[in-house]
């Protein structure tokens, strides 16, 4: 049952396993969905989806699968008016009502409700036949009936499709461009850097030593291990040019999180406008007094630094391709910007470019394909949680730089 939903969910990028699907079927076997679409929605979500980042994908798939399921048609406004301001429950004989309505099948009740919709012309409260409030018919609200259909009144729960359609979890989608809270979460992924892979075994492992010694019947045996320390060194290059203004807050956050994390063995930060040439800058304003020769940087910052460039790579083609193309009037560059990018990329083992622009806009007319040229030189990722994660994976992977990311 529902097997197409399984494939639909997978088609929407949810990695639902067969085991989880079986759990869902098992749960339905136990009746946990209580034969209601709403309950089924929550049940399926709890069993199948394991991160709030995927709730939105789930909602999307769920909507698509159940889109043809008709909930109630909208009630006529007149009817709703009759049902407003409910009357107090009128006196009634519980046995009589139970006998009258208790035996009806859901189909009969539905049928009766359809008839009432046709017949009813005015408000009725406290009665036993019409759709109204405070009475004992099988329809309406604020009344008594052993079973029936609530019409109007305050809804205590939303229907599943309403909940899914609201898509409250859109913000958590991993392919969404980052904002502050998500940013911190994403940056935690940088801890993937942490690993005790480098360095000699020099730290005494007390627990293991005791264990070994005791295994050895009391003869001391020392066990050493590698200290846990992050060996990764990072160089951040920030574009602080004009076209980056819309992303200022985003970049500030990236910057702050990177500095604060204190996670790296070393962190160097330099700035540039649109593209870098003979000089990089130590301050985001890129004033001449803060200039530092790129040559010096390439020479002194060793090749095992991981380079992360943050920029939109959108500029006038001449800034990238021509001598003297630098947008700063007072600076003349002997080599085109692209050469500098190539030199930097050649110098460092791992280098990525994070682009805060939405990926769909990368190759827009405005970018005039400088994005394309740059991404041909340096692997480029969107500055989203997913993009950041992928870029981090690339930075720590063992693959050589020559095998470029495909696609």
């Amino acid at each position: 049952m529902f097997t197409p939903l399984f494939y639909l969910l997978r088609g929407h990028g949810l990695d639902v396993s067969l085991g989880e699907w079986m759990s869902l079927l098992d749960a339905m076997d136990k009746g946990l969905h209580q034969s209601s679409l709403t309950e089924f929605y929550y049940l399926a979500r709890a069993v199948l989806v394991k991160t709030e980042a995927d709730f939105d994908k789930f909602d999307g798939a769920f909507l698509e699968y159940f889109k043809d399921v008709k909930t109630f048609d909208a009630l006529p406004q007149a009817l709703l008016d009759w049902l407003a301001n409910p009357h107090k429950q009128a006196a009634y004989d519980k046995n009589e009502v139970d006998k009258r309505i208790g035996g009806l099948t859901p189909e009969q009740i539905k049928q009766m409700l359809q008839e009432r919709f046709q017949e009813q012309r005015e408000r009725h409260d406290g009665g036993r036949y019409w759709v109204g409030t405070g009475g004992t018919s099988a329809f309406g609200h604020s009344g008594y009936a052993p079973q029936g259909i609530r019409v109007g009144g305050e809804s205590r729960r939303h229907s599943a499709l309403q909940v899914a359609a609201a898509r409250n979890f859109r913000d958590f989608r991993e392919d969404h461009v980052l904002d502050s809270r998500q940013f911190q979460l994403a940056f935690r992924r940088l801890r993937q850097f942490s690993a005790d892979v480098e360095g000699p075994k020099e730290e005494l492992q007390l627990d293991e030593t005791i264990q070994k010694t005791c295994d050895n019947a009391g003869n001391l045996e020392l066990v050493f291990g590698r200290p846990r320390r992050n060996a990764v060194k990072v160089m951040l290059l920030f574009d602080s040019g004009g076209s980056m203004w819309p992303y200022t807050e985003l970049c500030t956050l990236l910057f702050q999180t990177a500095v604060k994390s204190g996670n790296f063995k070393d962190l160097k930060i330099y700035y540039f406008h649109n593209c870098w040439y003979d000089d990089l800058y130590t301050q985001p304003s890129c004033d001449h007094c803060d200039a530092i020769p790129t040559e010096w940087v390439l020479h002194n910052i060793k090749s095992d630094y991981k380079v992360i460039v943050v920029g939109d790579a959108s500029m006038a083609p001449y800034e990238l391709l021509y001598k003297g193309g630098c947008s700063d009037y007072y600076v003349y560059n002997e080599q085109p910007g692209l050469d500098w990018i190539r030199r930097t990329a050649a110098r460092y083992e791992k280098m990525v470019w994070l682009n805060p622009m939405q990926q769909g806009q990368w190759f827009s007319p405005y970018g005039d394909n400088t994005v394309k040229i740059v991404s041909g030189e340096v692997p480029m990722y969107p500055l989203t949680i997913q993009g950041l994660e992928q870029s981090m994976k690339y930075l720590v992977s063992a693959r050589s730089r020559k095998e470029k990311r495909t696609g």
Partner: protein
Amino acid sequence: MEQFQGSSQYVVSEELMRSVNIAIALRKPLLIKGEPGTGKTMLAEAISQSLGKELIIWNIKSTTKAQDGLYVYDTVQRLYDSQFGGAGVNDIEKYIKLGKLGEAFSREKQAILLIDEIDKADLEFPNDLLWELDKMEFYIPETKKTVRALERPIVIITSNAEKELPDAFLRRCIFHYIEFPDAQMMEKIIRVHFDHLDDALLEQCLKTFYEIRALRGLQKKPSTSEVIDWIQALQIGGIAPEKIEREIPFAGVLLKKNEDLDTLRQKESPRRTRGW
């Protein structure tokens, strides 16, 4: 079947209640994620209270190993005893001490096991517990004995999402994300904590609280526990409701970081220095 309905001390949303009951019915661990201060840890207490079952809490720290939850073989004590001629050194079982998971397994009545803040531990930690949580048993090689759960405990796991949990682990859990309560829900929660509360005060507090939460650039947003502390402070201080929005007294109770307090002040200042 036992159903969890929330308790007098803990206001539970319908969605959460559903997830808890699903997890109990399917006999799978329930993984609870959510912003700090949304009452993840208190949930286990509420379940234990409402179902009348013993609660066993296993607090996870960055140094916690999976083994700690199962059992600890006190080899040092044994070595010590053997050197100084203590009695019963031959009996290894004497030196096996069950951890929290082991404790939960060995209870005769069904217990509730809370594995609190599982993401604090090493990345591999959840993977090391897969078998134990699946089969609800583990083997002690030293004594060649298997500890098997007499009654499968109800397992609640909380996570602050500091680290990603491994896929294989996630697949075995029922997942619930606690959303930050909206004003209506928050009012309910606060009323559970205070017997007598001035309506005007509460309304003004909540309004200001959600305004502060909506400020952009906060490093740590204030959460439920902070607003409760704040209201308490305001009550004790006898602050008039009108003053709250204007001055935000005791802002330090809500915001714990200097930078955040600065942010708050900056947002206020334009209003105060109008005509500047």
